[in-house]
C-alpha cells in the first residue's frame, strides 16, 4: 500500500531530495530525506516512466537545481566563476547554497551573502582574494540595479557660494558604492574583460575603488586613499566642512587645487545626486 503522504509532506520530501548536495542515490538514502520517506518507498510515491526509474525522474530536478544555482551565481560573479573554473565552481556553489539557500522570489539576491561566506569557508583557496573579488563584483551588481537618481552637475556645484560650502551635504547617487580592497582584484577584474585573459597573479595590494553608474553603464574608478576617505565621509552624510576638516588632518590630502579637481571629477562622474543644507544627507 502506498504511504499516505499529504501534499505538505510530499513537498518537504521532494525539496529535501532536490536540494541535497550529494548525488541523487545518496540524496534519496540520506538521513534527512529518509526521515521523511524511506528510500525503499520512493517507488510507492513516484511512478517510473517507460524509460526511467522513479528515482531517476526526481534525479532530473536534483541535477537541474545545482546547475541553475551555479548559472545564477555566475551571472553576478562572472570573474569569480572564471577564477574557480568549470570544475571547482559547482563545488563552491554547492557548499554556498547549502549554507545560504534561496529564500526569495528572485535569484537576484542569491549571491548577496557570498562575499562574507567566502571570507570564512574552509574550502575556499586564497580566501582574502576571493572575498575581495566577490565584494567588488557585488558592488557592480548593486550599482547596476540601483534606482536611477538625478545627477548633481558640476555647474550646480560651482554655483554654490563659498560661504555655504561648510554646511552643505552632498547626497550620494543611489548607484554609488565605495569598496576598500586588500588584494589586486580590481586589476584582476579588468583582466577578465579582454580576450587574452592575461591575469595578474593574486597578490596583496591595498586599493580603494568607487563603483558608479553613468547613462546606465557601470564604471569602476580607483582612487587614492585620501580621496576615498573624503568621498566616504561625504557619502556617509558628513557636511563638506566636517569632511574636509577630517581630510586635512590625514596624511596625503592635497591642497585646495587638487581638492577642487577631485570634486569636479566626482561631479563629472555623477557620484552625487543633490545638495542638502542642514539635516544629515541620505541617498
Amino acid at each position, binding site marked *: 500500500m502506498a504511504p499516505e503522504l499529504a501534499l505538505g509532506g510530499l513537498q518537504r520530501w521532494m525539496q529535501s531530495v532536490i536540494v541535497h548536495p550529494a548525488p541523487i542515490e545518496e540524496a534519496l538514502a540520506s538521513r534527512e530525506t529518509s526521515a521523511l520517506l524511506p528510500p525503499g518507498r520512493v517507488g510507492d510515491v513516484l*511512478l517510473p516512466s517507460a524509460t526511467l526509474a522513479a528515482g531517476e525522474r526526481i534525479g532530473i*530536478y536534483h541535477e537541474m537545481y545545482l546547475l541553475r544555482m551555479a548559472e545564477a551565481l555566475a551571472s553576478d560573479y562572472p570573474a569569480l566563476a572564471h577564477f574557480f573554473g568549470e570544475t571547482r565552481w559547482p563545488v563552491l556553489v554547492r557548499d554556498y547554497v547549502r549554507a545560504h539557500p534561496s*529564500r526569495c*522570489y528572485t535569484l*537576484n539576491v542569491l549571491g548577496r551573502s557570498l562575499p562574507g561566506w567566502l571570507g570564512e569557508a574552509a574550502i575556499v583557496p586564497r580566501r582574502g582574494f576571493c572575498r575581495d573579488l566577490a565584494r567588488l563584483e557585488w558592488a557592480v551588481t548593486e550599482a547596476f540595479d540601483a*534606482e*536611477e537618481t538625478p545627477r548633481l552637475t558640476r555647474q550646480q556645484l560651482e554655483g554654490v557660494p563659498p560661504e555655504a560650502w561648510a554646511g552643505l551635504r552632498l547626497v550620494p547617487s543611489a548607484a554609488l558604492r565605495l569598496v576598500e580592497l586588500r588584494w589586486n582584484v580590481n586589476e584582476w577584474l579588468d583582466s577578465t574583460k579582454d580576450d587574452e585573459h592575461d591575469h595578474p597573479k593574486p597578490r596583496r595590494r591595498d586599493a580603494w575603488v568607487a563603483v558608479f553608474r553613468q547613462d546606465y553603464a557601470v564604471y569602476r574608478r580607483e582612487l587614492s586613499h585620501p580621496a576615498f576617505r573624503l568621498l566616504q565621509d561625504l557619502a556617509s552624510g558628513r557636511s563638506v566642512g566636517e569632511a574636509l576638516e577630517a581630510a586635512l588632518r590625514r596624511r596625503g590630502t592635497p591642497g585646495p587645487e587638487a581638492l577642487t579637481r577631485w570634486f569636479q571629477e566626482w561631479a563629472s562622474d555623477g557620484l552625487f545626486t543633490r545638495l542638502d543644507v542642514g539635516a544629515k544627507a541620505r541617498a
Partner: protein
Amino acid sequence: MNRFGFPDLGIGIGLRASHFGEILSRWPKLDWFEVLSENYMDTGGRPQWVLDQVTERYPVALHGVSLSIGSTDPLDREYLRKLKALAERTKARWISDHLCWTGVLGRNTHDLLPLPYDEATLRHVVARVKQAQDLLERPIAIENPSSYLAFASSTISEWEFLARLAEAADCALLLDVNNVYVSAFNHGFEAERYIDAIPADRVVQYHLAGHTHKGTHIIDTHSGPALDAVWALYARACARTGPVSTLFEWDEAIPSFDEVRAEAAKAAPLRGVPVLATGTHGA
C-alpha cells in the same frame, strides 16, 4: 474570443536583455512582448528604464515563475504586492504563472516542481488561485507545466485537472503547446487528447518553444526552434480557440531579435484570421 475579454495581441516574443540594444535603436515591428515579472520587480537601473521605454510603445503581458501556486507555504503577499504594482506600471494586459510549486518552508528551488493531480490538490490550488486573484484584483492565467515525474497518488489527468481548476477558480489558461508535447513524451499520453480537452474559451495565450531531447526524456529548455509536431499541435489548438495571443519563448543561446521573431512568425498562418495588433513599429 476568450470569456475574459482579453485581447488577441497577435504574435510576440519575450523581452530579453540581449535584445535591448536592438530594440532601443530601431523599435522593431512586433505585436507584443512578454515580460518576466521577477526580472523587473526589484531593479531600478537600466532594465527598469528599458522596460518603461518598451511599455510606452508595445503591449505587454507579465509572466512569472515564483507565484508557487501549488505550494503548501502561504502565498507570498509581498511578492503579490510587487507583482500588482508592476502590472499597473506596465499596463500589463494579463498576468500568468505556472501550475506548480517552487518551494516550501520559506525556500525557493527556482524550479517549476510538479503536483500530484488528485481531488485534495485540486481544492488546494483552486483556493490559492482565488486568493491570488483577489489580491491582484484580476483573473490570472495559469500555464500547464512541463514535468519529468508523476505521482502514484494522481487520480486525475493533468488536462482534466487544469480544466476543473480553471472552472472552479474562474481563471484563464496559458496553453504551452511545447509543454504539452514534452509532458506527453515524458508521461506517455497522447498530446492531441490534452489539446482537445482544454476549455477553449479560457485560453488567453499560447506559448511555443523548442526543447532538448535526452533520449529517455525531454527537457523544456526553450532552446532553438519548435518542432513541426509542436506547430501541428498549435494549429490543432487554434482550430478550437480561434486566434489567441501567441508567444515564442527562446531562452537558451538566444539568437538575434530578428531570428526569434522569424520563428515566432511561423504562427501566423496557423492561428486563423490575423488580427491587426497595436504597437507595431519600424521594420
